[in-house]
């Protein structure tokens, strides 16, 4: 896959959003290019999940515009280019009667379109996605019976099954132990480097994310910083983001 790092995948242009009278985002402008691995970070309540939902068209911005693959959201139809791993992935209904394979198959539904059943090609892509996240042996297990780390992998496989060009992940490692987290980030790095997938990763876990991603966007209602993680760590952005004693906290970690 040849990557064009100048190609705009997502353009967020002067976007603001408020819940009733409570402003959540102010004048965010952000461009994400093909092949980027972007960490969107910010404290709780900073509006990062809101921004993600706006980028995905789940929320309408109060003002400003979002373009996906060059098209305004209202006219964007190529949803199969978008993969989504929601935060909910770890607190979905554990009683839902679905096998791992059935869950991953859902990722194929949008691609296949309405009134069409999945065919043999789809089944192969589903199996391939399961192998990519090393969950193929678990394909007949019930999703609710897996550990949260394994479930997280299944949700990645579901996103992969749609053969997307970009994957959005909302706090994917919440509730997952440290060792599983490491494996998880290795997997994301592979997806980004080997498959050339554009990744947008929402997290509040700054020190972990900063060492993984190629670009950081820091949000606290406004866009506080956007650039390489190195520069971010050098600068005093953390103070802006979290207040004074954040360096102390990071060193203790």
């Amino acid at each position, binding site marked *: 896959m040849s990557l064009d790092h100048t190609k705009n995948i997502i353009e967020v242009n002067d976007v603001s959003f408020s819940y009733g009278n409570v402003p959540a985002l102010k004048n965010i402008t952000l461009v994400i290019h093909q092949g980027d691995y972007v960490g969107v970070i910010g404290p709780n309540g900073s509006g990062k999940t809101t921004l993600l939902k706006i980028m995905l068209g789940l929320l309408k911005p109060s003002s400003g515009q979002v373009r996906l693959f060059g098209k305004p959201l209202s006219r964007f139809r190529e949803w199969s280019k978008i993969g989504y791993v929601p935060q909910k992935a770890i607190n979905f209904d554990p009683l839902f009667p679905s*096998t791992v394979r059935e869950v991953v198959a*859902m990722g194929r539904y949008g691609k*296949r379109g309405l009134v069409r059943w999945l065919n043999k090609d789809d089944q192969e892509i589903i199996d391939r996605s399961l192998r990519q996240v090393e969950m193929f042996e678990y394909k007949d297990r019930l999703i609710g019976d897996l550990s949260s780390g394994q479930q997280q992998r299944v949700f990645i496989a579901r996103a992969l099954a749609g053969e997307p060009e970009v994957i959005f992940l909302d706090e994917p490692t919440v509730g997952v132990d440290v060792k599983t987290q490491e494996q998880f980030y290795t997997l994301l790095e592979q997806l980004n480097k080997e498959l050339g997938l554009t990744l947008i990763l929402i997290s509040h876990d700054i020190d972990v994310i900063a060492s993984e991603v190629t670009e950081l966007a820091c949000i606290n209602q406004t866009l506080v910083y956007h650039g390489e993680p190195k520069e971010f760590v050098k600068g005093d952005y953390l103070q802006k983001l979290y207040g004074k004693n954040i360096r102390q906290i990071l060193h203790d970690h």
Partner: protein
Amino acid sequence: MLFDIFHYSFIVRGLEAGLLIAIIAPLIGIFLVLRRYSLIADTLSHVSLAGVAIGLLLKVNPLFTALGASALSSIAIERLRTSKKIYGETALSIFLSGSLALAIVLIGLANGFNVDLFSYLFGSILTVRQTDIYLIFSLTVIITILLTIFYKELVYISFDEEAARVSGIPVRLFNNLFILLAAATVAIAIPIIGILLISALLVLPVVTALQFKKSFKITLLLAEVISISSVLAGIFTSFYLNVSSGGAIVLIMLAVFVLVLAMKGGPTHSLGKR
């Protein structure tokens, strides 16, 4: 002999209607249960009672008026729910008590009807008319076809509505379509099951099947088996013991549920986690 033949024609109608209802009930019920919509069935059935009352008052087939009332209210309920102006369950209780009030007033205005209201409340194979069979049959075919066509979208929306939306599925359209189909199912189940027992028909076989902890397809299949066998057994019981068919069916379903629950290790194992 004559007596036997008389019995024969209505029990055949009852079995036909029952079988059709038993087939579609789990198809609708599985999505109702998984989406925490179980109470909608109850609400729509009470709305249907108001519909039945209107039908009896206007002297048209109550099944048609029940269908109309149920379908219209289902869309209104969905609108209210998505508008987020009031809580979802509040919308349900407003419709439930409101339509019950309307039904009671209409029944009072007509000085009681010359029909057995009891059979509409609890179901009776005697209430099934030949025109009902045609209506039930056509709606069963339509509902089954639509649910088969849109099976994958409905599964996705039930599992993860947000991700379904991001994948480009027109979620709102499907929610409206689904609740309309649920409304139709509730309305046509009235003659056999009765207004007060419909939600049990939709919910019990599915909840029982869920205890087996199998894939979506197998769960649906198990629910179908439980639903069809309980409904048929219930109608025979109702015939031989001369009791309400709805009551007999629901008691049999309940017995199966309790049996399966006991076999599978009790309710704490499955529902306690939530």
